[in-house]
């Protein structure tokens, strides 16, 4: 292991690894330290959806850019990330909700997204097994999509390693070295790595890592909430290509895995704060109830897996990104509240630019995601939570 680096990245999930890649592109010597195996925290547990359809300007702009980057990544990295633009389809069950959708579409069009309102005939063409009867209309953006959490994490890992980045798995950081308000490096057990900058990319574990730098855990109050998913046996490809979600049905959704053909289902059942990932029966009952109402033929399909992961939530469900002002050289990109996977390409490029150059062309609103907003009692409008 190197004993000196320009930047140490703590956390080998998609955010940490993609930032390491972008840092290496800018010529930095980078070491990534991951306490488990890469992706083991939240990335490998995610539902794989990628959307620009948020309900506020900052998240829409960041995700519009991220989607553009997702399209480029397989060619750029030389490894397939499995990105496909299969769309996101939100479904309204009431007239009031339909009005909200119409207003959201206006915002999206102003910001350059291709979102539009569709009727249930068109929705049925897009999702052949959709139950159209309970829904009034759909909010549809065909440019949203999904990627393989597994392939994309490894694409960044392999390419970063080829560019000289050191990635050490099963290597938990045990201390962050700070002198006179300046970050000096990190310790992993008895090994020390000196560094000019340290990035906390540990999402659900970020407060524990901040604490190593002498910061109060509540300074940036990220809390781990258990969210769960189920997956069915493979069904015919194309039956549920987009992510389909009626938000008023307890934030439930279904999305077909483009690779193995199984249908992933999620719902807004939340436990915590907790670091426990044991699946629960209440979730299974709830999610299957909604899945079989969204697409009734799923009744006859077997559920084969259920697992849990974390939404690393901030008080306003928006991530924190930037430099932590109390420790020079300590940066954070965490608290993604369920959106880290989809946001990673845009976030990581911006974070690498910030660390190396102090500025970026990525359309990321630093003020919106300011890690210190909670100290000032500021809350953003809550980021739209589904998938």
């Amino acid at each position: 292991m190197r004993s000196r680096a320009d930047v140490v990245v703590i956390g080998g999930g998609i955010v940490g690894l993609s930032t390491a890649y972008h840092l290496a592109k800018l010529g930095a010597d980078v070491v990534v330290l991951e306490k488990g195996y890469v992706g083991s925290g939240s990335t490998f547990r995610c539902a794989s959806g990628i959307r620009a359809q948020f309900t506020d300007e900052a998240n829409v702009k960041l995700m519009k850019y991220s989607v553009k980057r997702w399209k480029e990544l397989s060619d750029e990295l030389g490894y397939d990330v499995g990105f496909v633009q299969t769309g996101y389809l939100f479904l309204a069950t009431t007239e009031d909700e339909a009005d909200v959708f119409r207003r959201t579409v206006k915002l999206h069009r102003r910001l350059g997204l291709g979102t539009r309102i569709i009727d249930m005939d068109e929705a049925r063409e897009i999702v052949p097994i959709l139950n159209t009867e309970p829904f009034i209309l759909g909010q549809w953006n065909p440019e949203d999509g999904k990627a393989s959490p597994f392939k994309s994490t490894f694409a960044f890992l392999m390419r970063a390693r080829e560019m000289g980045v050191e990635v050490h798995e099963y290597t938990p950081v045990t201390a962050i070295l700070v002198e006179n308000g300046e970050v000096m490096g990190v310790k992993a057990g008895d090994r020390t790595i000196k560094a000019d900058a340290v990035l906390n990319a540990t999402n659900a574990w970020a407060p524990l890592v901040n604490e190593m730098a002498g910061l109060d855990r509540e300074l940036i109050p990220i809390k781990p909430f258990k969210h769960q998913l189920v997956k069915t046996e493979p069904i015919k490809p194309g039956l549920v290509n987009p992510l389909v979600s009626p938000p008023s049905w307890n934030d439930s959704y279904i999305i077909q895995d483009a690779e193995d053909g199984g249908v992933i289902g999620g719902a807004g059942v939340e436990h915590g704060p907790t670091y426990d990932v044991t699946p629960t029966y209440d979730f299974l009952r709830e999610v299957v109830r909604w899945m079989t109402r969204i697409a009734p033929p799923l009744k006859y399909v077997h559920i084969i897996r259920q697992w849990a992961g974390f939404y690393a939530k901030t008080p306003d469900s928006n991530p924190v990104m930037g430099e932590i002002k109390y420790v020079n050289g300590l940066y954070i990109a965490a608290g993604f509240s369920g959106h880290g996977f989809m946001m990673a390409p845009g976030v990581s490029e911006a974070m690498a630019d910030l660390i190396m150059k102090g500025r970026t062309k990525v359309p990321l609103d630093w003020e919106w995601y300011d890690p210190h907003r909670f100290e000032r009692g500021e809350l953003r409008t809550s980021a739209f939570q589904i998938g």
Partner: protein
Amino acid sequence: MQMRAPKGVMVLGQTDGEDPRENIIICRCNEVTQKDVEDLIDRGITDIEEIKRLLRIGMGPCQGRTCIPLVMGIIARKTGRRMEDIKVPATRVPIRPVPAGVLVGELDEE
């Protein structure tokens, strides 16, 4: 181990000249071969949790009953690790696949 036929002799289910490891199925659910597993290990990916996810071994309807022990054996052989030092990935519920309709009381158990 599969018998290799003399050169030029056609064997049903095996294309002449192919790497025989392409015909040895490790995971039936996701059609993963011995060669797929060994190629990843040769690229430096030797962690069973990572091999599992890249090849989707143990993630199909059989829940890994067949493939996981086989993959552990290949890892042990190729890396010199002992089988007992390789941690078995978490088993996911349900232990047996269940039709979704049964869980919501709309179908009877098969």
